[in-house]
């Protein structure tokens, strides 16, 4: 069992005819993802990597019903495409684009709540049920099945750590990228809840960073409701306050979202926090 998605999950690709969209459609198909259709207004009737392209999500849902959709749409148009997917009945929406305006993100999240849908991202690498289904842009080869659930705010850093695990013959159940923006759909807590309930996940890795209060909220939640061991790594220890470190959400503002505060919260909650990315593997092995 995996969380959120599994090998039967039927997936649409919005913006499938674009450069990113078509490339990652191929990558996802290679991984085994069950992509049933693509959407690209005005390009209905074409095919990309053998996947039929439709003009609208509604048309796609009529002809190839899907549960999930992944969005490769330029940021200014992402709001419209996301609302379309949600209105058409998509229940898991993965928002890859970076630079989606904040107010657009808030609109998307409110509508998703209204529709009872889960949003991953924006500015995420997506999520993967290792070995079965990848809805995202992460490199295929590092994601092999195993007992570790991973949830991360950043992409390459997550690959770095999962890469370490892979080298050490430790696979993952599900790896979820929350996204580097300030307003994102899933928070650590949501994913932790799922991992706790997932019988295949034995250890949880949480990859956080400075900015916001998601790690602090996660710590509170772990203290109260997570029985499985949690190992964390946090980026941004050396970051100066008031500067945005690449991610829109990675900023220490008005004394909030500091590295030390987050480490303290997590440690208090019983989470082992690794000082360096490479130490995560050892902490996991100790925990299991």
């Amino acid at each position: 069992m995996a969380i959120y998605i599994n090998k039967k999950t039927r997936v649409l690709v919005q913006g499938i005819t674009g450069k990113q969209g078509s490339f990652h459609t191929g990558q996802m198909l290679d991984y085994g993802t069950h992509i049933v259709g693509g959407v690209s207004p005005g390009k209905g009737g074409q095919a990309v990597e053998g996947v039929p392209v439709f003009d609208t999500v509604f048309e796609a849902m009529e002809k190839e019903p899907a549960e999930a959709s992944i969005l490769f749409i330029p940021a200014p148009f992402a709001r419209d495409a996301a609302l379309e997917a949600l209105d058409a009945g998509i229940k898991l929406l993965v928002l890859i684009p970076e630079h989606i305006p904040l107010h657009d993100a808030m609109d998307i999240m409110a509508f998703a709540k209204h529709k009872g849908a889960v949003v991953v991202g924006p500015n995420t690498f997506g999520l993967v049920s290792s070995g079965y289904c990848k809805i995202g842009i992460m490199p295929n080869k590092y994601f092999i099945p195993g007992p570790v659930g991973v949830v991360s705010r950043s992409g390459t850093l997550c690959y770095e750590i999962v890469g370490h695990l892979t080298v050490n013959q430790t696979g993952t159940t599900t790896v979820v990228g929350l996204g580097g923006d300030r307003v994102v759909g899933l928070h650590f807590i949501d994913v932790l809840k799922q991992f706790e309930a997932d019988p295949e996940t034995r250890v949880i890795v949480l990859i956080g960073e400075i900015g916001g209060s998601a790690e602090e909220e996660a710590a509170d939640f772990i203290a109260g409701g997570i029985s499985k061991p949690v190992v964390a790594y946090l980026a941004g220890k050396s970051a100066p306050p008031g500067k945005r470190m690449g991610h829109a959400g990675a900023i220490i503002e008005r004394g909030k979202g500091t590295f030390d505060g987050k480490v303290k919260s997590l440690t208090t909650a019983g989470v082992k926090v690794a000082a360096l990315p490479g130490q995560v593997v050892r902490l996991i092995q100790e925990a299991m």
Partner: protein
Amino acid sequence: MKLYEYLGKKLFREYGIPVPRGKVVASAEEAAEAAAGLGEVVIKSQVLSGKRGKAGGISFASNPDQAREEAGRILQMEINDLVVEKLLVEEKLKIEQELYLALAVDCSTKLPIVLASLDGGMDVEDVPEERMIKWPVDVSIGLQDYAVREICRQLGVSGSLKNEIISFMPKLYQFFRAMDAELAEINPLAVTAQGLVAADAKVTIDDDAIFRHRELPKIKEKTALEMRADELGLAYVELDGNIAIMANGAGITMATLDMVQHFGGKPANFLDFGGGADVDRTAQALELLLATNPKVLLINIFGGITRCDVVAEAFVKVRERKGFNLPVSFRLVGTNETEGRAMLEKTGIKVFSTMDDAVRQAVEAARAL
């Protein structure tokens, strides 16, 4: 993008939010002229920094001569390293009470949030948690009167002030939403005999939504290099160390900086050149970094969408073109690793497989200088 107070107030006015009468000036003489029509005035330095008052950047004058004098003084100041180029000369309000009011983005609820307090005029960080009322706004219906009534009840405000707040607050919400603001803060919101007046305006517009607000001027709050990085679409932050760092992805770049510090080194910058960059873009990122004259160069690539051969090619090209000769610590793994590694090793660059090794070597190289 942070807006200067005078610009925030100009926009406030367009949304029906009352602000003091006033004028933006760039010289002492202009300040005197502006003051002539306003009676007692306040003269406020226009810099993108809080705590202007404490730094002496806000002053009062009761006549044009005084205004000229004070303006001249402030125009020679630097406030938190920022040169004062403009002043806002405004009527001095007769303030009966100072409130705090802001709209911000709440990441937890994913909604706009109203922040309101009776403790206006002081640093918002100093307002006790329980005296700051927080009200997330459901975007599907916006900020309705009933919500403002409830906020007023929680504040303990009633009567005519309550009615004024009920008519004021939705305007700030409209502004916040329509202008794609990250923050729209009024501190203090002045209670006067003429009603509520926004005595200050601290507005930040979402950089990602600037394309919807072409009417706004470009405001520079960054260094020249940071501006150049913005143009290139690179995430760059200048720091004060001597090891220049470049990596692909915000999280891993932060982690690289952290590791440099962990092993006793000092990062010169944060530079995330993103995922999937082509040769040109990678070369531009590298050139930007070299322009800072770093002592050591540390490149950390974990190739997913980013192809190792592309990074290697860009590096070789830039080195040929610029002929730089500083210690380079290169970590390269992932997509097309073999090709990339071969290209670098041909030019004598040693390639590391782990981040730890690359960082250690960079720190040692910097120490050896």
